[in-house]
């Protein structure tokens, strides 16, 4: 049976990390399952978890008084949700909610941060991965913001 370190080694976000590094951070993770519509994180709440998606889809939503809830992104197997765990002030900028049954490795954000602080090489490595992912999300969000296909009316 695979342990958390094995599962992390197969996930694109952790691809290429040394086995000893994976073992070190695996101690911060547990397997978890979320049912459809179940909340993973509330917008504005403390970002204390990184969700490593193994199966299923997670929707990221924002709420506004004028327009109600809007899905602004979805994440699937191979993605992670909760990059704010490594970026002060460690707050969720969006709501994360399961669309389908979602299987994740739920990583304790504070545990990961403590390990990054204690081992700066690990911290730099994870920060590079977080920055790369954030850059991808930023580019994608810029394209969405441009509303290239016309006037956005839901």
């Amino acid at each position, binding site marked *: 049976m695979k342990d958390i370190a094995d599962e992390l080694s197969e996930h694109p976000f952790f691809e290429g990390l040394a086995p000893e590094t994976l073992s070190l951070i695996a101690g911060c993770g547990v397997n978890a399952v979320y049912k459809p519509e179940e909340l993973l994180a509330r917008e504005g709440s403390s970002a204390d978890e990184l969700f490593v998606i193994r199966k299923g889809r997670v929707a990221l939503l924002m709420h506004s008084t004028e327009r109600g809830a809007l*899905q602004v992104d979805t994440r699937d197997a191979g993605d992670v949700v909760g990059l704010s765990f490594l970026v002060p002030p460690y707050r969720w900028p969006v709501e994360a*909610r399961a669309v*389908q049954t979602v299987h994740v490795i739920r990583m304790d954000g504070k545990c990961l941060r403590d390990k990054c602080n204690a081992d700066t090489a690990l911290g730099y490595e994870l920060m590079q991965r977080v920055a790369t992912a954030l850059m991808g999300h930023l580019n994608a969000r810029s394209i969405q913001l441009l509303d290239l296909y016309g006037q956005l009316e839901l």
Partner: protein
Amino acid sequence: MNDALIPELCNVNGRLEDTPDVFTLDLVPPPGYRGFAPGQFNMLYVPGAGEAAISISGDPEDSYRLVHTIRAVGDVTSQLRTRDGHSQVGVRGPFGKPWPIDAARGGDLIIVAGGIGMAPMRPVLYAALADRASYDNIYLLYGARTPRDILFQEQLMEWHRQGAITAIITVDAARPSWKGDVGAVTGFIGRIPVNPRNTVAMICGPEIMMRYAASELLVKGIPMDRIHVSMERNMKCATAFCGHCQLGPYFVCRDGPVFRYSDVAAMMEVKQF
């Protein structure tokens, strides 16, 4: 069609409202109709309103229907939207260089479309599916504004369900009830397996989207000359005389609208082009 500068009147078979601002006009081809190649366009003429360059969105093998999918954004296209089974539309064409579908035979085909850019891509899918065994994987990545702006949704999903294509359809934003993908279409390129030496990519949509998409495909290792884009410029004569659609050394109406990305990439990044 006979004279490239004289519109031929075609009867309208019918009009279908696809989305809140996009409709499909189904015309009876004129006498002597010789078909079109995927990616080509016609100039559609409404007396008293003028002409507009419109991509052909139907099946290239269907000689009984000439189908155009149109976004109503100006006078001509708004007038076209009033046409129904009792009216006629002037047609000149087809014009332009088509998608290089043959270049994809024997390998994978990646289609990236955004918004109304899906219209000129549907004939590519019709053509590839008519000869499905000649291609390996066919991927369609299609981005729309919202779920209700998705063109040809049922047909695309049916092809996906049949396993004929792998379709990823994403929207920029949606209500919580939407169960599909949300996010920029360019962000999904990284998710598909790519064999860079044996893949042809075709992109159609807003120019910024095409640039980002091409950039992601280049990261995947697809050579620049195997990435093709469809450029949109102000087409007037459609016969490379008037110069309205000039793009550097090219006339988009004659030398395009489909170009190798390697031929136009530099111009796509410069403001004055």
